[in-house]
């Protein structure tokens, strides 16, 4: 079974090739069959492979498959080869299953679009690249997948290419992530030159042998890789591209900018956990960046009006939780949150997409409303997604994963009270903006007419994802509730287990209660402000200062403005100034001098004998004078 591993990325590639080469000649039906089917088969295959991996585990819980040697020069010999372990099993399952549901949903969502086959071609290419990224057994192949998903992100953000704003957003996403990628590439150069390999397993072994914890080289290497992770996962300071990326079709936002691609940075750090453990300072930086990002993005999410931008900031914020977890060594917890987040965030985006579709592309949630009565399936699934995002205790999967992160942040030797407190405050913000969204968009009278009746093709993925958003949480239960650790036990064959320095069950219960309270407090506040008394926000925050703060949050803390005035505009201005290449003016000067000399001298060629005679005599006199005096 496991030797079919290569087929998992190959199927979507095949789908891409068929759609790219012959897409326009196929009927819609065939196009959607190819586009959805390729990912569907990949999902079936990866489920089968995962089951076989769990039931008949290969030796050391690792399976390697080399397809061919990519490059081989001296000892630089990266292969096109895949590595399957518990971590990549989780990743491919999420990518293919959630990917398949989103593809299915897109058949209806994109039904009227003229670029139907182009859309599925790009989506298939994305799934393939994401699978290559997660399965790669060496960093160069991982980098190929890494850039591939970035490319697909660019293509899909700019999918509706006729709008200049979409092109701008797409370019921004690609350029900003490329800045991170370049830092990562330099990290690869460093790792190869120091350790002589890019094979991830071998690299981890050699790094642990060769480097002392806390020495300079692993710190630099880890920091460089972190740069790549920050760009891809939209963490501070490279987070600005993600809110704009919402310009793409909603299924794209669900798949790429929520469920899978933006968590590539989380995957990278988890994959290179040995390196990050060797660089404790960088690892702490991961935690601090995660915390800062989750708070800043949480505040920004509170101030958005566009429903997709709320979800975008909430994605940044939730990925911030994963970074926080990674930063304190809560490897499995971070990956667990990745899995649950993929389910509920994809659900939220798809449900939001269903609302957007029904309302005729109205994304401002203050102009929506009435979803509860008009679109019941969408409403209930949206509510489940939002509850899971707000992590309502016991019944949602978001609770279990977020609680696991918070608990491990509390009890980790590198974590502690302050990081935990920040995380809990973030949870308050989360439930606040999640239910602000629910109350404004779904309740009350319909301010925009909801016309499109969503069909089953839209409902099925929503319902499946809603079920997943509840049940996935039960694979890992805290010590005091159930004490069930299926997920982390499974992952421990690939990732180091969590090392707590204080295990205290009483404490854990207290912490869970505090987290629960913060969640309900958030719901309560949003209930009062956005449902019971809609005039309150205006009354309390109508002042000048609050207005300023509001617009600061709404603009994402002004990062765009800063980058624009510090980098973008000076860059454009300087390059414009030098459009004609100042170096060329030197050569122009040379040619000008030569031509002037030529013209000047040809002036003397008048054809008049008198002037020539005069010239000769003056010359002769001058020569004589020089001869006499020197």
């Amino acid at each position, binding site marked *: 079974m496991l030797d079919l591993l290569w087929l998992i990325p190959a199927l979507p590639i095949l789908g891409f090739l068929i759609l790219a080469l012959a897409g326009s000649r196929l009927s819609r039906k065939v196009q959607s069959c190819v586009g959805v089917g390729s990912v569907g088969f990949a999902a079936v295959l990866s489920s089968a492979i995962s089951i076989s991996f769990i039931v008949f585990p290969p030796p050391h819980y690792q399976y390697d498959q080399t397809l061919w040697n*990519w490059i081989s020069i001296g000892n630089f010999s990266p292969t096109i080869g895949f590595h399957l372990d518990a971590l990549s099993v989780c990743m491919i399952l999420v990518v293919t299953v959630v990917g398949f549901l989103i593809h299915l949903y897109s058949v209806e969502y994109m039904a009227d679009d003229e670029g139907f086959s182009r859309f599925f071609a790009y989506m298939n290419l994305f799934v393939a690249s994401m699978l290559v990224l997660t399965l790669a057994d060496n960093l160069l192949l991982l980098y190929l997948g890494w*850039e*591939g998903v970035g490319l697909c992100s660019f293509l899909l953000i700019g999918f509706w290419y006729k709008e200049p704003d979409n092109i701008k957003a797409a370019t921004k996403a690609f350029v900003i992530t490329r800045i991170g990628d370049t830092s990562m590439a330099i990290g690869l*150069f460093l790792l190869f030159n120091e350790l002589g390999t890019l094979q991830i397993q071998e690299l981890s072994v050699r790094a642990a042998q060769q480097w002392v914890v806390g020495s300079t080289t692993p710190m630099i290497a880890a920091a460089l890789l972190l740069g790549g992770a920050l760009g891809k996962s939209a963490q501070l300071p490279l987070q600005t591209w993600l809110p704009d990326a919402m310009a793409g079709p909603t299924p794209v936002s669900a798949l790429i900018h929520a469920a899978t691609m933006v968590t590539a940075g989380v995957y990278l750090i988890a994959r290179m956990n040995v390196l990050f453990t060797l660089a404790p300072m960088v690892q702490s930086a991961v935690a601090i960046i995660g915390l800062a990002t989750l708070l800043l993005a949480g505040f920004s999410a509170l101030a958005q009006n566009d429903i997709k931008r709320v979800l975008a900031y909430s994605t940044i914020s939730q990925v911030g939780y994963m970074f926080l977890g990674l930063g304190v060594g809560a490897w499995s917890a971070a990956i667990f949150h990745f899995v649950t987040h993929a389910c509920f965030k994809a659900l939220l985006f798809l449900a939001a997409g269903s609302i957007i579709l029904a309302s005729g592309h109205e994304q401002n949630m203050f102009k929506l409303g009435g979803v509860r009565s008009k679109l019941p399936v969408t409403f209930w699934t949206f509510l489940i997604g939002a509850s899971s995002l707000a992590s309502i205790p016991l019944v949602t999967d978001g609770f279990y994963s977020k609680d696991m992160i918070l608990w491990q942040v509390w009890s980790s030797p590198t974590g502690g009270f302050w990081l935990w407190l920040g995380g809990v405050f973030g949870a308050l913000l989360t439930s606040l903006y999640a239910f602000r969204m629910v109350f404004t968009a779904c309740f009350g009278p319909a301010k925009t007419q909801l016309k499109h009746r969503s069909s089953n093709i839209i409902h099925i993925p929503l319902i499946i994802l809603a079920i997943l958003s509840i049940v996935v949480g039960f694979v890992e239960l805290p010590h005091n509730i159930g004490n069930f650790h299926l997920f982390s036990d499974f992952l421990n064959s690939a990732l180091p287990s969590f090392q707590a320095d204080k295990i205290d069950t009483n404490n854990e219960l207290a912490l869970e209660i505090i987290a629960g309270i913060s969640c309900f407090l958030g719901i309560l506040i949003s209930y009062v402000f956005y449902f019971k008394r809609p005039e309150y926000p205006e009354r309390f925050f109508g002042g000048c200062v609050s207005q300023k703060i509001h617009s600061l949050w709404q603009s994402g803390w002004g990062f765009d403005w800063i980058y624009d005035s510090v980098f973008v505009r000076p860059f454009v201005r300087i390059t414009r100034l030098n459009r004609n290449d100042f170096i060329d003016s030197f050569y122009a000067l040379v040619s000008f001098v030569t031509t002037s000399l030529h013209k000047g001298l040809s002036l003397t060629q008048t054809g008049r004998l008198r002037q020539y005679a005069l010239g000769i005599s003056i010359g002769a006199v001058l020569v004589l004078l020089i001869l006499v005096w020197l």
Partner: protein
Amino acid sequence: MTLVYLIIIPLIAGIVSWVSARKNPVWPRWIALSALFAQMLIIISLWIGHSIELNSAHNGVWIASVDLTWIPQLGIGFRLAMDGLSLLMVALTSILGMAAVICSWTEIKDGVGFFHFNLMACLSGIVGVFLAMDLILFYFFWEVMLVPMYFLIGIWGHENRIYASIKFFIFTQAGGLLMLMAILGLYFIHGSITGAYTFNYFELLETPLSAWSSMLLMLGFFAAFAVKIPVVPFHTWLPDAHTEAPTAGSVILAGLLLKTGAYGLIRFILPLFPSAAHTVAPVAMMLGVIGIIYGALLAFAQTDLKRLVAYSSVSHLGFVLLGVFAFNELALQGAVMQMICHGISTGALFIIVGALQERIGSRDLNRMGGLWASIPRISAVGLVFALASLGLPGLGNFVGEFLVLLGVYSVSPWMTVPAAMGLVLAVIYSLRIVGKAFYGCSDDRSRIQDLWPREALLMAGMILAILWLGLFPQAVLNTVEPALKAIQEKAGSMSYKSGQAAVYTDILSYFQTSQVVTETQRNGQNR
């Protein structure tokens, strides 16, 4: 004699097509195309024969050679030889030659015969440059490729063609003259020391040179190659020539003429003047980095699409210069890879620009936009090659750039970091092409013709080539490996300091290591 055929076939085909044009203006195209195809077949048979030979026994780096007497009194011979490096370069010449013929099928309407004569003469000069192993012969071919190109630009070029062609000619000629002086200098020094006056490359390799004369002669060669590559600040002829040339001219210029300069660096400067090359290496690498960044900045600022692509060549060739002067296997292999892939990707981009100009009558980016809706195939192909040019993994250029940077990192991390910034800048200018030309809204462009079948076939071939180079580069790397190893043995290698120190290696430390380098070289010679 096969090597002679490689040079003669295009030349004869050129003459025949010139004559045949009077009968029928389509004949020259077919004659040229079939001649290049025949040339390609010869190259493939050489390649296959060679790789079998490689597997059976390692008998030297030379695949084929020819040595005929020409002017024995002066020690000038008609010496040709081919190793893996020349093989790949000649193959590239043949491929891009065919591309040039195909892309001018509808563009060139006047003087078809003379056009093809010039094109083929230029190609045969280029093949000669890649094969010549006698310095006078090399110089001869160097000039042979220059003159037809001058005509191609001057006669079939665009608005400002006369200015561009003269600028091109003067720049190249000035560099070439300095090289001629250096060749003569080498000849006399070699003659006076050994008593044998010869231009034979293989004999001149053994010339004992003092540090000073080695440096002067090296600079003479470097001048010619630096203009051709082009190295900033000698690059200003390039945007003008590329922009004003007809499409075929741009393809040949960017794809092949620039490569002759890079080839010259590897073939002549490294093995003939190793110590001088090591001395200037930091400066040369610095120039490479400056080229990468400066070219990219200028590319971004252009509004003329063809000029944009031209400046991107300056940036890409900076990687080649950087890689050659890193003196290690990874970087050298990367440089060769970059030469080949740049030839294909930039050649294809120029063909796209030419096709667009033929269809919408403009190269101005501000007047384009929304092309995807009306001509999706051209746009998709343009996207693929824009991606190749920004170094997307999976396409050939990535392999070249990555290997160069990886190799350079081992000798100087501080060169790698700014050079890697070129990757970001490449995204900025490449996406500008996509965003401005293909994306956006179009007014009324419904009547534009998408790719002709002939063009579609050509583009499909080039896409396959760039994918093959990106995913299966090993065939190319294996072919060129023995040749580069032999050259590197002559040139020595930059010392690599392992461990912590490597991270902090500074530019200055090159000057300290130059002593170590000469030592390694001496060891190399003893062997």
